[in-house]
């Protein structure tokens, strides 16, 4: 029977299927970080259980880590990180601690090591696990109870997801990026539009994206409410993987590529839902509200809440404008920011830093604007330094930092002050996400850099 990519990967991992029960799915890779794992390890200890497959488990420190040199000063953050270290050493789990050359945001680290491969099932106690779907893996976020379940059994009981095809055909114009695609998709279908679905991104505009860009797209599928995003693996995927530390070698490589090449939705596969987007029509996109679905082209104006179709959207928009301190009708390009953040598991990869640096090169960040550039991993930082990008950032007046989640969620000292406004390459513009009372506009790295130079939301074309 014809199947979609998601169904094929799912079916290949069913350990047990029984009437009236969820499928028991085998998990190929389990990623951990310090925030959502302590209670799971506690649960294991309490029940006298072991980690079934430490060799399919990997931990990193990312959410709490400071991005300036030195130890963690907040004692509660430190306890959380120390707890992860103790748990990993007690249960035999590989950990990349602060200072390690492989440390970084969990969703940046695994792909760059070549651990994320097509056709795998990957989970992490973190909703942006959807990132790994860029390789044709079925990857999704889970809660702490499920983390404990996977630690103990390397499997998860799950109800099958539905499938949604998002086809983006055409060619992106200069200055339009993967971030703009995914923000436009979320604005179109809403923050619940993907609910219950695994989204498969397809179409010519997706096929021409680099792996980094594909990760940006899949990363934000969760912001449309989807469990996962996926892109069928192709030569771009294989080229990215070949030679990475954990990628297969020799005969194993050939066997892997042969099997990966089968991983695509059949031509006559039926999706539960489909939507189409024309890449030619896309322009840089920004959010104006307090959820990632509240976005518009940068050339638009702050919308009038009364213009929405239903009362729930109108109420959300009114609240959002009040929180964001915005007035309907203001051109988005006139919105002033205090802070620009380039980083996160959405846009903290080398390609993102190169894009931002290319815009900044030879220019200076507008006065009164603070710009933070936080690489997604220590390896990304080293690579950027080898390419001289750190110099470009510093010379432009931006702060070049150490790797971590940083201002994406402000669990470390990198936060917005109440009322401060940011243009951020991260993935969530929720109230208070980047610091209590902080206001966030989600943007691409290109828009972030142009905004830093002009002090108002801008794209490179405005410079």
């Amino acid at each position: 029977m014809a199947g979609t990519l998601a169904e094929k990967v799912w079916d290949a991992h069913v350990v047990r299927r029984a009437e009236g029960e969820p499928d028991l799915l085998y998990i190929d890779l389990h990623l951990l970080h310090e925030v959502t794992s302590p209670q799971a390890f506690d649960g294991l200890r309490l029940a006298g259980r072991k980690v079934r497959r430490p060799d399919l488990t990997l931990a990193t420190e990312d959410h709490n880590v400071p991005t300036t040199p030195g130890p963690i000063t907040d004692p509660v953050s430190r306890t959380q990180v120390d707890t992860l270290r103790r748990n990993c050493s007690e249960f035999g789990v590989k950990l990349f601690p602060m200072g390690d050359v492989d440390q970084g945001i969990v969703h940046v680290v695994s792909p760059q090591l070549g651990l994320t491969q097509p056709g795998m099932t990957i989970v992490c106690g973190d909703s942006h696990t959807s990132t790994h779907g860029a390789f044709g893996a079925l990857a999704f976020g889970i809660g702490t109870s499920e983390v404990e379940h996977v630690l103990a059994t390397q499997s998860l009981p799950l109800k099958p997801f539905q499938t949604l095809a998002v086809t983006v055909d055409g060619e992106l114009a200069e200055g339009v990026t993967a971030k703009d695609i995914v923000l436009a998709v979320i604005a179109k279908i809403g923050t619940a539009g993907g609910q219950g679905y695994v989204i498969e991104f397809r179409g010519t505009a997706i096929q021409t994206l680099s792996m980094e860009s594909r990760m940006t797209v899949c990363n934000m599928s969760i912001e449309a409410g989807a469990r996962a995003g996926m892109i069928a693996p192709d030569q771009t995927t294989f080229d990215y993987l070949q030679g990475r530390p954990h990628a297969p070698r020799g005969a194993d490589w050939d066997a892997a590529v042969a099997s990966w090449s089968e991983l695509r939705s059949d031509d006559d596969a039926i999706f539960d839902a489909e939507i189409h987007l024309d890449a030619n029509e896309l322009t840089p996109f920004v959010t104006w509200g307090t959820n990632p679905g509240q976005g518009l082209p940068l050339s638009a104006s702050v919308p009038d809440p009364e213009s929405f179709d239903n009362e729930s959207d109108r109420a959300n928009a009114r609240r959002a404008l009040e929180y964001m301190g915005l007035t309907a009708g203001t051109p988005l390009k006139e919105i002033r920011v205090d802070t620009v953040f380039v980083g996160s598991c959405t846009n903290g990869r080398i390609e993102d830093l190169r894009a931002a640096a290319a815009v900044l090169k030879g220019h200076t960040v507008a006065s009164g604007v603070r710009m933070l550039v936080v690489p997604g991993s220590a390896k990304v930082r080293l690579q950027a330094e080898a390419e001289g990008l750190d110099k470009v950032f510093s010379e432009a007046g931006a702060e070049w930092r150490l790797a971590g989640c940083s201002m994406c969620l402000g669990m470390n000292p990198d936060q917005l002050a109440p009322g401060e406004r940011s243009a951020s390459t991260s993935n969530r513009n929720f109230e208070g996400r980047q610091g209590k009372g902080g206001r966030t506009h989600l943007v691409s790295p290109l828009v972030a850099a142009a905004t830093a130079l002009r002090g108002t939301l801008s794209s490179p074309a405005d410079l």
Partner: protein
Amino acid sequence: MDTFTTHTGVGVPLRRGNVDTDQIIPAEYLKRVTRSGFEDGLFAAWRKDTEFVLNNPLYSAGSVLVAGPDFGTGSSREHAVWALMNYGFRVVISSRFADIFCGNSSKAGLLTAQVSQGDVELIWKLLESEPGAEVTVDLQSKTVTAKGITATFEVDDYTRWRLLEGLDDIGLTLRQESEVTAFEAKRPSYMPTTIDA
């Protein structure tokens, strides 16, 4: 996990849609390494507003939260469920829940009862006109009742069974360990491991 059959408690009308888990519990409260003590973080930013519903003493002992659509979107943090439960909530009623939030709730023993938005509006009206009114949620019959209102709710059968029996998911899976072992034996040799590259 405790069993859940029926629960009666004060209903709290939360007239907001798209309540994401960053609102349920902001990141700064996620640093604890236990499953308890998260009640101070519950709706922390909103509770600073004296008008916020939980600051009304008539609702402060509430255990049934009645919220707008798309409750629990965003971050997968199970801390959101613990914060609700630590505060004293046993049930959340909404017309639509985010997937991960639903899964987390079912593991931790919080019931997410999905009713129509029309029924949510009726319950909101009742709770606002009679603050302190009680709502009964019966998992056996899948009904929500409150003075003059009866609504049926959706919950998937497997979750319902586990909650009614108070069953530990891990224990259930471990009964099938031999099947997991058999599956592992068939995995291709090229698949990666995290230890020694």
